C-alpha cells in the first residue's frame, strides 16, 4: 500500500482550514494527458498563521489497498532521533536542521478501497498542528503512514516528506488568491520559489512589522547587491521578480536601485501577509541628501556620500504619508545628520516614521535641510512579470 496523493489545499476559495492557493494549484487544472497534471504527492504547502485558530485538514488518496475493504489509516511524526538527513525533498534549501513537525500527526480514520485497491481522496484532520506557536519560516514535515490490521496492530506502509511554508497571513497585493484562466492573472498566485526566499529572510518573525523589518535588513545586508542609479528589475510598471530571484540565488554581484529595493521589500513582505506599498519622494528638480551609505557599500567614512536624487522610492507601511512608516533597504541614513563634523551614525530605515518636522524622522535624516520635496500622491504595489 502507498500514499498516492496528498492535497493540502482543498478549499480554493479560502485558506482558513487548509493551505493557501499557490502557483502549484494551477497544475490541477491542466488538461488530461499533461504530465504536470499527474497525481504526484504534493511536496510543499503554504499556511497562513492567521488561519491557525481553525482545525486544518488535508486530503489523501491511497493505492495498493485491500479490494473492496476498509482500513483504518493515520500518520505519525517519527521521532527526531530517527534522523531525517536524507529527506528526499526536491528543494535544495531544506536541510535537516530546519525546524520540523509543524503540522503534527494525522488523525486516523477509516478509508474505503475499491476493487482495484484504490481509495478516493479522503479528508484527514490535523488536530495538533503548531502553526500558532511558530514563526514565519520553512519547515520540514515528515509523516510515517500506517494502517491498523485485524489484530489492532499498527503497520507502517509509507513515508512522505513535505516542505511547509508558514506566513503571517494570506498574501496581499500584488499577490492574489484568485485562480483564473488568464495566465497573466495567475502570475499573482504566490510563487513557491519567492516564498522560499521570503521565508528564509524573515525566518522566525512573529509579527508583520518584524517580517517587513527582517526583509528590509536582509536586502540591505545582502552581499551580492550593489547600488546603481537606474532600475534593473522594472519594466514599465511591472517588477521582474523572477529575474531578481534568479540573480539572488547566483554567485555574482548585481545592481539595484531604490525602486528595485522597494519592490523587493514590498513584494516579499506582502507575500508573507504584510501590507506594504511602494511610494516615491520627489522634488520639483533634484534634491540633495545628507550623508548616506548606499546598498553594497562598506561602512567606512569615504563611502558615506551626499548625493542628488531626482526621486527616491521606499517601502511604506500601509500607505504613503508624512506620518507613515518607512522601510528603505537601499541605503542607511546618518543620524548625526545635523553635525557633519561627527562620524556618521548609521541607521537602516526600518519602521522609521517619515516625519519631516520631527527630530529622528526619516525625512530629516535623508534630505538636506534646505531642500524642498514632495511625496507621490499615490503609493503602488507593482504587478509582477
Amino acid at each position, binding site marked *: 500500500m502507498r500514499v498516492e496523493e496528498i492535497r493540502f489545499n482543498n478549499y480554493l476559495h479560502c485558506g482558513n482550514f487548509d493551505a493557501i492557493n499557490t502557483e502549484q494549484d494551477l497544475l490541477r487544472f491542466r488538461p488530461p494527458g499533461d504530465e504536470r497534471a499527474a497525481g504526484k504527492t504534493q511536496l510543499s504547502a503554504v499556511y497562513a498563521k492567521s488561519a491557525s485558530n481553525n482545525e486544518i485538514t488535508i486530503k489523501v488518496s491511497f493505492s495498493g489497498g485491500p479490494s473492496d475493504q476498509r482500513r483504518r489509516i493515520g500518520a505519525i511524526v517519527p521521532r527526531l532521533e530517527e534522523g531525517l538527513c536524507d529527506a528526499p525533498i526536491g528543494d535544495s534549501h531544506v536541510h535537516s536542521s530546519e525546524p520540523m513537525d509543524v503540522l503534527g500527526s494525522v488523525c486516523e480514520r477509516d478509508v474505503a478501497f475499491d476493487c482495484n485497491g484504490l481509495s478516493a481522496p479522503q479528508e484527514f484532520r490535523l488536530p495538533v498542528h503548531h502553526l500558532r506557536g511558530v514563526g514565519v519560516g520553512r519547515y520540514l514535515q515528515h509523516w510515517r503512514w500506517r494502517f491498523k490490521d485485524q489484530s489492532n496492530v499498527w503497520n507502517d506502509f509509507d513515508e512522505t516528506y513535505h516542505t511547509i511554508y508558514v506566513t503571517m497571513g494570506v498574501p496581499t497585493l500584488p499577490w492574489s488568491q484568485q485562480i483564473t484562466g488568464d495566465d497573466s492573472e495567475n502570475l499573482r498566485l504566490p510563487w513557491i520559489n519567492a516564498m522560499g526566499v521570503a521565508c528564509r529572510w524573515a525566518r522566525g518573525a512573529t509579527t508583520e512589522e518584524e517580517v517587513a523589518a527582517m526583509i528590509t535588513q536582509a536586502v540591505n545586508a545582502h552581499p551580492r547587491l550593489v547600488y546603481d542609479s537606474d532600475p*534593473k528589475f522594472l*519594466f514599465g510598471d511591472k517588477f521582474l521578480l523572477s529575474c531578481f530571484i534568479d540573480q539572488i540565488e547566483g554567485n555574482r554581484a*548585481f545592481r539595484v536601485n531604490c525602486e528595485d529595493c522597494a519592490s523587493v521589500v514590498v513584494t516579499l513582505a506582502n507575500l508573507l501577509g504584510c501590507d506594504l506599498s511602494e511610494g516615491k519622494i520627489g522634488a520639483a528638480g533634484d534634491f540633495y541628501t545628507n550623508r548616506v551609505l548606499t546598498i553594497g557599500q562598506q561602512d567606512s567614512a569615504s563611502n558615506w556620500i551626499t548625493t*542628488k536624487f*531626482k526621486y527616491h522610492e521606499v517601502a511604506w507601511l500601509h500607505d504613503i504619508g508624512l506620518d507613515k512608516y518607512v522601510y528603505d533597504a537601499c541605503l542607511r541614513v546618518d543620524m548625526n545628520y545635523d553635525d557633519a563634523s561627527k562620524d556618521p551614525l548609521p541607521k537602516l530605515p526600518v519602521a522609521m516614521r517619515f516625519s519631516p518636522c520631527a527630530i529622528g524622522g526619516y525625512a530629516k535624516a535623508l534630505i538636506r535641510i534646505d531642500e524642498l520635496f514632495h511625496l507621490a500622491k499615490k503609493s503602488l504595489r507593482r504587478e509582477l512579470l
Partner: protein
Amino acid sequence: MLDESKTRKGEPSSVEGYDASDEVSVIFKDFFPDPSAFGDWQMGFRHSYIDGSRRLERAVLDDPEDLDRRVLIDICETQSFAQAKNVVEMMLKNNTQPSRYFRWGRDGSFITVTDDTAPTFSRLEIAGNLALHITSFGRSDVDVSTITDSINTRLEVDFSNSHSFEPIKIPKPLPYSRRKLRLKFSATPSLPKGGFVKFIATGGELRLKGPDLLIYTHKTGEAEIHARIIGPDGEQSPISIWME
C-alpha cells in the same frame, strides 16, 4: 522628454521638399543578438517576458574571467517605432541620475544614452520597433560599446546585396488619403533557431500586431516592403508576404 526637433525614420516630416515616400520604416520580429557577438562572455540568464503587446527579451552576460564584470541586455519588441520610443522615454524617466546624456545616433533612427566623456557603460537605443538597453550589471563598470556595435551590425543587415527576393508593392493610394493594410506573412521553412525577421518599408509605416503586419501608407507614392529572414549566421532567406 526626448528631443522631438529631429526627423526620424518612419515618421512623417514637415521638412520642405521632403518626400514621404522615401521614408524607411523598419520592423524586427524575434530578434536576439547572435551569441557569438558576446565573445567569451557567458549567458548567465535569459528569459522572455510578455507584457501586453510588448515582449521583453532579457539576458545577463557574465565575464568568465571576472566575477564583477556583467552586462544586462534588454531587448523590447514593440508594435511600432512610436511604441519603442515610448519604452525608451519610460526608461529615461526612471533614470534617477540626471547626469547622463542621450543623443541621436548617426542615422537618426537610434538614441544613445551615454556619457560623452567616458567609456559607454550604458546604452539605450531604438532600432525600428525595438528598444534596446545594454548596461553594466555587475560590481564593475563595463564598456558595452563592443557588444552594442555587434548588435547594431546584426540589426543593420543590408538587403541591397541580395536582389533575388522581390519586394511586395502596395499601389499608390488615392490623393490626400492614407491607407491601413493588413498583411500576412509566413516563414517557409519555419524561422530557424536564433534567426529573426526584418521588414523594411518605403512609402509607409509598418506596425506589428500579433501575427499580422500592418502598413499605414503615406499620402503619395506607392509603398514597397522588403523582408528577409536573417539566420543565426547572418544568411538571408525569403519570407512570404501577402495582402489579406
